[in-house]
């Protein structure tokens, strides 16, 4: 976990790949004053071009596969994908349904997996801390 507040900044783009919306409740809750992820320097940004982290939810649907890959590939390196929720990590309700994949996280090479149906906002923030740590390693930064 990062030490002092504001010693890290993450731009986060969120992508829904067939989620039921439950996970979006909790990603939205990061903006509630009770959690306020901006206190860690984590902010939701409008474009993948601005993002360091891609959070993804859902099992992946056929219709979202190409837009999702294009979104991830639009991000600059180093970047990291965080799978949020059981569907995204491959154990959720709709994994392998007729028009669904086995988890958006697996398909987009997620390196951080946050379980839960949906995961609590605290769990998502822990996932983001982990993403920040991995990005630092990748950039050769120490903290």
């Amino acid at each position, binding site marked *: 976990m990062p030490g002092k507040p504001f010693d890290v900044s993450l731009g986060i783009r*969120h*992508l*829904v*790949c*067939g*989620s*039921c*919306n*439950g*996970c*979006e*409740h*909790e*990603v*939205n*809750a990061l*903006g*509630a*004053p*009770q*959690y306020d992820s901006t206190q860690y320097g984590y902010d*939701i940004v*409008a*474009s*993948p071009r601005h993002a360091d982290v891609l959070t993804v939810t*859902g*099992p992946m*649907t*056929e*219709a*979202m596969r190409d*837009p999702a890959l294009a*979104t991830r590939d639009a991000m600059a390196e180093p970047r990291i994908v965080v799978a949020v929720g059981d569907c995204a990590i491959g154990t*959720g*309700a*709709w994994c392998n*349904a*007729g*028009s*669904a994949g086995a988890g958006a996280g697996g398909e987009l090479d997620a390196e951080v997996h946050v379980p839960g*149906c*949906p995961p*609590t906002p605290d769990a998502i923030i822990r996932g983001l801390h982990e993403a920040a740590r991995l990005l630092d390693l990748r950039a050769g930064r120490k903290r």
Partner: protein
Amino acid sequence: MPLRAMQRDGRLLGAFADAERRHYLGLVDGAIRDVQLSRDGQSMAAEFPMLAIDEREMVEQYGISLDGLPKDLVVEGRGLTTFVVGPVHAGIIEPGRFTFHSGGESIVHLEAQFGFSHRGVESFLEGRDAVASAWHVARICGGCSVARSWSYARVLESFHALAIDEASEFARMICAELERAYNHIFDLGVAAAGAGYGFGLTRALELKERFARINARAFGHRYLFDAVLPGGIRAESLNDRRALRSDLRALRDDVEKFAEQLFGHHELMSRFSRAGVLPYETAVAFGAVGPALRASGGTFDVRCDASYGRYAQISPIRATAHDGDVASRVRVKYDELRESMRLIDVAFDELGDRPIPLPQHVRAIAGDGSAMTEGPRGAEILSLRTDQQGRVQRLHVISASYRNWPLVTRAMEGNIVPDFPLVNKSFNLCYACGDR
């Protein structure tokens, strides 16, 4: 019964197909009727435009051929600009694609394309035990999980003519009204955000979070998944009622303070008024349900007009408005939110100290039926047919969002492009339960 008579004496709800035929659902005298037509044949959408999306789905998913199915509008003209947004958006929202045709700043026509969240949930459940599928049904959409689970439970219970005890029914009512409340408070916030009033969203998120925590304490899940079950309700944690009620009262007071700030904000209200007007006639022609209908002068509310649970005993006061604009929809949602808080209070009074029994055992058996529950966005309809072993043969969901989406596009006509987020968020419909 022909559809025309169904529409005259009641209301059309929607349609779907299975391997053998087409089913058209309508509500007549408080009961859902299923009018069946041959697989291929005449489209009903030419006469009942609300059915165009249902019939297109039949064609796409069941390969049915229908004569006279209205075609997509082709929009062309000098000076028109066409641009496409989505399925990836800038916010934390679900995927949809919107094609705007605008003349200058004004929207001439808006098309919405869906299906990006299509997982194939209905066919996935075919062949599975119908009772065990309740867990999946709760996860078709996270914004109306309770309403859908309640519809599903009622269909399965009807197969056994199973009666639910009074205490469980009051607990279900508390649960469903909590779902409405947390949705509506969030909707007030996103509507404010749609007009650029960030404080409104932050404050609404704070209040929504307090609802989520109360939900978890009362029913074991922050968004009330798996609370309403076939045979009863999982409310073992609805024990500390005194503390829950006092927290709910404090929350209600803070919701009211927030509403005073919102509705007292002159500039905000002037942005809300006359934006995204949905005329009554359009709302009715396209089968609008829920707050979207009631803000345009309609009155239909499943809790009052096709009552279930204990709603006949504690009947909700309908919230209505007549302008059909963003201001009306926001107002109706706030009035409903307040009414939900009152219903929760009355239900707690009725419940008293009675314990809530564990759910009765329900076995999956053969049956065929539909049920409808008033969710936060309107009527949440579910049809189920099972085989002799109690396995799902056909499950179909007609969600309130599915019914209402075509109205969002119509409400946008003549509005300026930058007002799309505002108008859209004043409906705040889901995609997951429409795409399925």
